[in-house]
Each structure stands twice: as structure tokens, then as C-alpha cells.
């Protein structure tokens, strides 16, 4: 099978859906410009014309309302935000309008709309350009939230999101755009609402979100060399959440780490820890441990960014602590190859 990057997979999903369904269109600030939203919108304007792929004024609140209106009258908009932070300008439309529109019309109104937002770090992005806001969206009934981590899921879930009759927030960690894997050519949707077990293991379950899946898999590789087998689960859809798969795993391993791509306090990881404790109470041999960002705005300097973000090394140390093993020799392991790969500015 041919191999695609995550970014190419997102792009291919949109292209195939636009070819299949003339009501699909893609728009947002910078969408047709030469930077092409990290390449994910490349070629769309050329293939489908400015009618179906266009830029907008810098008016986030109103362009989100615009997407709702278009969805109400039979189009399927894909609205793109190059930083999830900018969605804060559109929270009124998202929370007060889009999430409850179907409900307040007695369930009679499909809202087929996708909001793509880029989350996560680059370097030096700082307090206003590196949030995730996962728990903001997942807290609100009526919004579906997906955060794929593999190119295959990126394609499958983008297709599912576009075909969904409900609003879907599609969160893409910008570093995941580089991930490359074999991706099927046909346009098949992955089901929204199911988790994926990425790696089987007997000793401890790691539930990881978005970029932290990469770190968790890295940690699993390292620990496997020392005889520790991690089970790594990617929820893929954050709302509605597939608790059954998570609970089944934790029932076997009896220990769980939640690795979130967001602040810990009052966040998605709090929900996961609570749900798992509720479902697996009595089976757990240790409290559920949570990893996430330091409870501060994101600083811009690398020296602090490295402290702010947990990574595979953090996971390894937490596993050592929870299982009472190690400390393992980590000499020679590069925990910062992604950070070092990234060159600025954008």
C-alpha cells in the first residue's frame, strides 16, 4: 500500500469527499494561501475552484456562524483554524448555537459541519498559540470531538466527520502532520466513538491523547527492552468516549496512566481517571496517574517548554514508580528528536 503523511491523509479525505459530494466545501483564514495549512489544503482551490475553497476575513465568531448557516441549508462546511486558540473567538457560536441547534429544534436539524483546528506545539509558540482546549469542547453536550493520531485514522475519521450529521471538532496536533504510514486508497469512514488498542501489553495501560500517543509508544518500546509490557490505547474520539475499551484493558492490567495533551487540572484526564476509577474500582492496584502539561500558560523558551510538556521519559519514570521497577538505564535514548527536528518559524 502507498504511504501518506498524516497531513496528506487529511487532504486526501477532504478531496475524496469533495469529489463525491458537491455540497462539501473547505474554508477558513489562510486555507487557499500558499502555506496551505501545513499542506493539508494543497490543491483544493485548483481542483474545486474558489467557490469551494476560500479565504475569509479575520472574523472568527461570524465565520463560525456562517458555517452553521451553510449547514442548516444543505451544505457540508469544513471550517479550518490554523490554531485552536482562535476558536475562543468563536465560543459563542460553538457552545451557544452549534452544540444545541439540533436539540432546540426538537431533533429535526442535521448540522453536518466539521471544524478542523490545529493544536499543539511548534517552538516558541507561547501562551496564545499552543493550547488544546480539549476539555472545553468535550464538556459540552452536542459536540463530537475527534483527535486522530495515525494517518489511517486521520483519513478515516475525516471522512466520517464530513459525513456526520452532527458537528464534529477535528483536532490535529501539528507534529502529527509528519507521521507517515500506509493509508488505504479508498474512501472508507472510521467509526466515530471507538478507541483503538495500538499495542497489547499485560503490565500497565496507558491511555494517551493525540501527540502523547507517540510518546507513549516510544515509552513502550523502551520499556519492552526491560521486560515491561505497556498496553497503549488511543481513544481517537474524545466525545463520545469509548469507556468500554478502556475499562476492559484496565481490568486486565489493573494499573493505568492517562497521558493527556492538555492541562491536567479539571481536564480530559480528570474525566478519564474518574471514569476508569468508577468502572474499575476495586480492580485497580494503584491510583490512576495522570500526565499532562504544567498548570501554567505555555512559556516560549525551550528550557521551560521541556519542563512544561511531559514526554516518553516522563512516562517511563511514572511506570517505574507505579510498578516499583527500574530505574532503567536510559542513556543514549533521544527524547527530544521531534523538538530538535522542528525548525522555525511557523
Amino acid at each position, binding site marked *: 500500500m502507498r504511504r501518506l503523511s498524516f497531513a496528506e491523509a487529511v487532504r486526501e479525505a477532504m478531496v475524496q469527499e469533495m469529489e463525491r459530494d458537491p455540497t462539501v466545501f473547505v474554508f477558513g483564514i489562510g486555507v487557499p494561501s500558499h502555506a496551505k495549512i501545513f499542506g493539508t489544503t494543497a490543491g483544493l482551490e485548483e481542483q474545486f475552484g474558489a467557490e469551494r475553497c476560500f479565504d475569509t476575513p479575520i472574523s472568527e465568531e461570524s465565520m463560525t456562524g456562517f458555517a452553521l448557516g451553510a449547514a442548516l441549508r444543505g451544505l457540508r462546511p469544513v471550517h479550518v483554524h490554523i490554531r485552536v486558540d482562535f476558536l475562543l473567538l468563536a465560543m459563542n457560536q460553538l457552545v451557544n448555537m452549534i452544540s*444545541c441547534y439540533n436539540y432546540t429544534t426538537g431533533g429535526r436539524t442535521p448540522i453536518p459541519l466539521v471544524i478542523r483546528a490545529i493544536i499543539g506545539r511548534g517552538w516558541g509558540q507561547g501562551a496564545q498559540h499552543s493550547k488544546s482546549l480539549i476539555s472545553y469542547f468535550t*464538556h459540552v453536550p452536542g459536540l463530537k470531538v475527534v483527535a486522530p493520531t495515525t494517518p489511517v485514522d486521520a483519513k478515516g475519521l475525516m471522512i466520517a466527520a464530513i459525513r456526520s450529521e452532527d458537528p464534529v471538532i477535528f483536532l490535529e496536533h501539528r507534529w502529527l502532520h509528519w507521521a507517515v504510514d500506509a493509508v488505504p486508497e479508498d474512501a472508507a469512514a472510521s467509526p466515530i466513538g471507538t478507541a483503538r488498542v495500538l499495542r497489547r501489553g499485560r503490565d500497565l495501560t496507558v491511555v494517551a491523547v493525540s501527540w502523547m500517543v507517540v510518546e507513549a509508544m516510544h515509552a513502550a518500546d523502551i520499556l519492552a527492552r526491560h521486560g515491561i509490557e505497556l498496553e497503549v490505547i488511543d481513544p481517537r474520539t474524545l466525545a463520545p468516549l469509548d469507556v468500554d475499551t478502556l475499562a476492559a484493558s484496565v481490568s486486565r492490567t489493573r494499573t493505568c496512566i492517562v497521558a493527556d495533551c492538555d492541562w491536567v487540572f479539571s481536564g480530559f484526564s480528570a474525566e478519564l481517571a474518574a471514569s476508569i476509577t468508577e468502572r474499575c*474500582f476495586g480492580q485497580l492496584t494503584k491510583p490512576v496517574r495522570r500526565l499532562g502539561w504544567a498548570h501554567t500558560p505555555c512559556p516560549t523558551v525551550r528550557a521551560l517548554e521541556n519542563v512544561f510538556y511531559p514526554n516518553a521519559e516522563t512516562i517511563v519514570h511514572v511506570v517505574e514508580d507505579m510498578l516499583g521497577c527500574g530505574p532503567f538505564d536510559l542513556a543514549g535514548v533521544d527524547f527530544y528528536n521531534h523538538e530538535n527536528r522542528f525548525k522555525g518559524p511557523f
Partner: protein
Amino acid sequence: MDESPQAMTAASIQTYRDALFEAMEQALIRHDHTVIIGQGVTDHKGIFGTTIGLGERFGPRRVIETPLMEEGSLGICLGAALNGLYPINTHIRADFAFLAMNQMINLAAKYRYMFGGLFEVPMLVRLVIGRSWGQGAQHSQSPQSMFAHTPGLVVVMPSTPEAIRETYAYAIAHHRGPVISLEHRLMYELAFRSDPAPQSPSASQSGTPPFTSRLERRGRDVTIVATSIMVLEAKRAAERLAPHDIECEIIDLHCPSHPDRDLILDSVARTGKLLIADTSWLAYGVAAEVCRIVAGTAPHVLTAPVAMLGMQPAPCPTAKSLEDMFYPNLRDLMQAIVRLVTGGDNPAIDLPDERSMADFYKTFRGPF
């Protein structure tokens, strides 16, 4: 509650609304640099009576009416704070704050940190939450967890006039950052009896910030962590259950951004049982966070899974029948407590009918 009105002095009884008015009035009297800014602050309804007449008394430079401009309004408050004022920004529905989320989260919450401590943005943002009736999907949300999730914000949910007096006086006089207060509409008209020696503003003078949780009642059987009006509901439930030998310990979370972890953990260590009653949705919310505190530190102290009550996972419906199901009521709360403590239902305990919380507060005026 059963004490005759004559037995109480006027000074020890105050409504929630009067406490808010007093806090606003005192802020303007004591601090020249305080201004109140918001839509409706000078109209005849005056933010449900909490700013009535202040416009005339303190003039349009201190009490400032705005157009409908939530994003702009909060931004203006931030700028005013940067240039030496203490702004109090009001929104008569917390839902309207979603129009100002950019200023709240991207600016106010991190203005201090983002600039390495060069700036301070002291301000109080008052948001009114809560049901009355028929408010529906866009007028009854309770967004404390969204704000509490974000570093840099202090989030409070006062459940008594005393909490208002202490918290607001401290915030205005001493705290140098943004404070978001969620005030519950249904409590506005309620009268509360406070301690004989009111602590305001001495609590602030003692230097302990009132930005933390409060122990409201001692009990051995179950720990109830509640927010806002659910604290009152918990007290009502506790009183009804005490004759049945069920003793509830009640903690008013009060400050979702800065919960008192030790208070909660100590209590649960004694009772072994935890019930959380919040005014918002449970998923990803305050209830999840309190669970996290216990589950992540000492789950072995729990002798049963945690029970949680909050809004049902739907937008708020307006039909009376559904609204009553949407919000937890006294019956749900008592039933949850009984099940948690005794392991099942107890037919000997007379549960109240499903008359909604709203009906009770509509007629009941206090004092609590």
C-alpha cells in the same frame, strides 16, 4: 430555619442579593479606583438589584453602562486594570461570557505570566448562573470548569452572603489578578443567617485568601462536596437525614480553581464515602476533578465508588417536566446519599416528592 423571625436581629440576616449590593457599594466607597462596567448596570433593574442606584450616587465615571459588546467590554476592563483601575465586569448570564472567551482565556488569564510578571490585571468578573424556569439552552449554563481549567484565573462560586462579603472584599482589596465569580440566580432572594460575629472584612485582614474550600457541616458517614446552590441542597438533605442517623459532612468547594485538597482528602479518609454535587455537567467538569483529587492520591480510603450529581448531559430543555429531570433535585440527592451510606434504598426514610428545587426556592425566602 425553624427559629422565629423575632429571635433574630436584622444585622445577622441578609439576602444573597443584598450581600452582592453591599459588596458593590463598599467597593465603590472604599476604593476610588473601582469601577463597575457592564450591560444593564445603570438600568432600573440593576443586575438583579445588585447595582441599583449606584450609577446616580457614584456617577457615570464609576458605574459605566456599555452597549452589547461582551468581547470589547472585557477587553476594556483589562485595559483599565492595566492603567490603574479595578474594574468589576458584570454579565447577567454566564452564557454571554462565551462571547468574551478570547479576552478571558487568551488575554486576562495569562497577561501576568505571558509578560513574565510585568503586568497585573486585577479585576472581578461577575457572571450569573442558574435556573429559574424555562431559561433553556442558552441561559442556564454553568461554565466553572472551563474557567478553572485555565491557569491564571481564580474562580469562585459563593454559596452564602458571608462568602460574598469575604471573597469580594478580599479580591477587590488584595488580589492582583482576574477573579471570576459565578453567582446563582436562584439564591438572590434568599435570606441567610450568618454567624454572630461577621468576619468581613477581617478575614481579608488576616491575610488568608478566601480562595479555597469551606467546611460547612461535620458528619461521619459521607462527604458531600458541593458547589453554589448545591451546597444549600446538601444542607437541606443533611437535615432531613440526620434523624435517620445519617450524618453528612458538607464541604463547599467554593473555589473550583483552588480546591482545598487536604480538606477533601481528610474528610473522605474519615467517611470513606464521597458524593459530589455540582451545578454543571459532570463530564470533564468539577465532579471529575474532585474525583481526580481522591483517585489520584488515596483511592484506598474510598469504601464505595464515588456518587455524582449534576446537570444531565443535554442542553437545558425548557419544558417543566424535563427541566425538573435535567437538574438534580432534593429527592435525587437524598436517594444518592442513602444508597451510598446504607448500600441500598431505605423505605423508612421519607423522600420528598419530585417537586423541583425551583418550586421550593420560589416560595422559600429564608433565612437559611
